[in-house]
């Protein structure tokens, strides 16, 4: 039998282990999150897409989107541009373009749908610089064969810089939807990063409850539940059947269901093939055992995806064999880690193919940084037993991804980088 003094001492001891490295830096991080929340709220309020194109340094605004139909075979700078791109099952049609002398930019207002931007140059540039969200990435492709994705809800300026005339082409989402379960334009895709959809359901507006009957097909499933349109303070609940059954609760504070909900917002459990993983999702008033919400505007959706662990592990984490990033599908190709006891790993890009670098760390209380040499972006993790995150795309030998422990390397610390190649 334990006693309360032991409990208090345990809590005190572990609280004392917390070293706050950067309370000042936290101020900036919180303000950044505040800006993100405001942006999403504005996007939700805006409802429909708005788009403005402008040539850098010029005064002329190009026609608005509905000023005329796009040509059947679009050309920019005399180059043929794809009439459409496929991205993770969604189709985007050429919408409009902008050209400039060594540089061009397009301002994309927040939209409730994602948009793609492609680029090209008439010169023999080995690389062009593409900037969005203020971060510049160097790409070797400069012939409208690649794109960057601007997610729904984001507003940004995409800029391309080359040594000669350059152009940007904007692609707008079509009404076509990928295979899967779709309701009111929102789709749970049949396949997300190699994971198969087992079941999905949407409630009708005003229906605050959805039930699904499903059976696991392998050693794990993940649940995706989304909720929107509820009054402030409402909660969404997920009751799970099965051997690992239980419940989870989250806040229902979005104004609209997110685009591509199967790719975000999920919780996973281990299963046996054939196991019952039926689920009930519902929205309540308030957070504490409130009654089923009655509201004409509430919408709720839930999906079950197969989510078997890959069995490949780095720094204590399961490594996905397929991931989605930037509107592309990527397949695991290699993993890099230092010798035991090492606190730093760094890998360079390769000529002729893009790589996506994802860092993994298990470094106890130590601070770990994940760095991309090209973009200059650094992710700093102050402590964290097991964590990981995307470092970015390495497009050519000039790009390098690094994960390193700052200061002394704790015993047993692990850092690693997984590299993925395009699989779409």
């Amino acid at each position, binding site marked *: 039998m334990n006693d309360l003094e032991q409990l208090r001492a345990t809590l005190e001891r572990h609280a004392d282990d917390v070293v706050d490295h950067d309370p000042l830096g936290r101020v900036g991080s919180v303000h950044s999150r505040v800006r993100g929340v405001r942006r999403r709220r504005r996007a939700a309020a805006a409802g429909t897409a708005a788009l403005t194109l402008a040539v850098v340094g010029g005064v002329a605004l190009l026609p608005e989107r509905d000023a005329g139909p796009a040509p059947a075979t679009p050309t920019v700078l005399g180059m043929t541009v794809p009439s459409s791109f496929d991205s993770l099952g969604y189709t985007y049609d050429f919408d409009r373009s902008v050209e400039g002398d060594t540089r061009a930019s397009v301002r994309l207002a927040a939209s409730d749908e994602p948009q793609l931007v492609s680029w090209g140059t008439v010169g023999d540039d080995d690389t062009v610089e593409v900037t969005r969200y203020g971060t510049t990435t160097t790409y070797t492709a400069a012939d409208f064969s690649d794109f960057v994705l601007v997610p729904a809800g984001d507003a940004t300026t995409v800029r391309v810089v080359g040594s000669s005339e350059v152009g940007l082409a904007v692609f707008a989402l079509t009404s076509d939807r990928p295979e899967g379960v779709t309701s009111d334009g929102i789709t749970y895709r049949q396949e997300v990063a190699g994971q198969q959809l087992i079941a999905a359901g949407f409630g009708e507006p005003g229906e605050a409850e959805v039930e699904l009957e499903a059976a696991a097909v392998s050693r794990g499933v993940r649940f995706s539940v989304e909720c929107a349109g509820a009054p402030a303070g409402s909660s969404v609940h997920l009751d799970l059947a099965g051997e690992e059954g*239980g419940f989870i609760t989250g806040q229902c504070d979005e104004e609209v269901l997110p685009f591509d909900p199967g790719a975000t917002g999920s919780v996973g459990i281990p299963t046996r093939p054939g196991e019952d993983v039926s689920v009930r999702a519902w929205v309540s008033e308030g957070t504490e055992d409130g009654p089923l919400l009655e509201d004409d505007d509430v919408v709720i959706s839930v999906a079950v995806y197969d989510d078997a662990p890959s069995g490949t592990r780095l720094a204590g984490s399961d490594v996905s064999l397929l991931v989605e990033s930037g509107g592309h599908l990527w397949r695991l190709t290699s993993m890099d880690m230092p010798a035991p006891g090492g606190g730093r790993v760094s890998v360079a890009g390769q000529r002729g193919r893009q790589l996506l670098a994802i860092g993994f760390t298990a470094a106890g209380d130590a601070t770990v940084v994940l760095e991309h040499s090209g973009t200059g972006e650094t992710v700093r993790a102050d402590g964290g037993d097991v964590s990981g995150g995307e470092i970015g795309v390495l497009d050519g030998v000039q790009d390098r991804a690094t994960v390193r422990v700052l200061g002394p390397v704790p015993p047993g610390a692990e850092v690693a980088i997984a590299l993925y190649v395009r699989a779409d």
Partner: protein
Amino acid sequence: MSVDFDDFVVARSSALLRTAYLLTHDHASAEDLLQTALTKAWFAWGRIDGNPEAYVRRILVNTYATWWRRKWNGELATEELPERHDECASDAGDAVSAAQDLWQAMERLPRRQRAVVVLRFFEDLSVAETAEQMGCSTGTVKSQLSKALAKLRIDPALGLADPADPADTTDPTDLSHLEDQR
């Protein structure tokens, strides 16, 4: 409310980070939870009447209790099992032997129970204050506390008596209020 938000974050967020860590048992999750709570507090900062730290802690605890990590497409999933239906289980599988570390045992507690333990025995809040922070009744706090202590193999009666709260007339030996919250 005259306290500047940025000044508050610099001065008091370290203390809140410790609470967040005791709740999450993970440094990265604690930082994420704290920033999430501070972000929510930012939008209400001008309307806070009274102690902002108590206000932010309340957001933090309730965010934790009703929160699951949102997974970005392709990002590493944090394996996080949901709470079990059988919250009040006291079977051998859930029981913690005296030899086991209480810290590890706390990891098995459902979130609300863990939150109640942290508020009551780390923050030293009374049952009433804990209930206020959790946004629930004192009966719920006592119920959750009893279940948590039972799983930690601590005599539940020890944690129910609330000498700091003269209004608390709970008979430590009377466990009739331990209704199933589900």
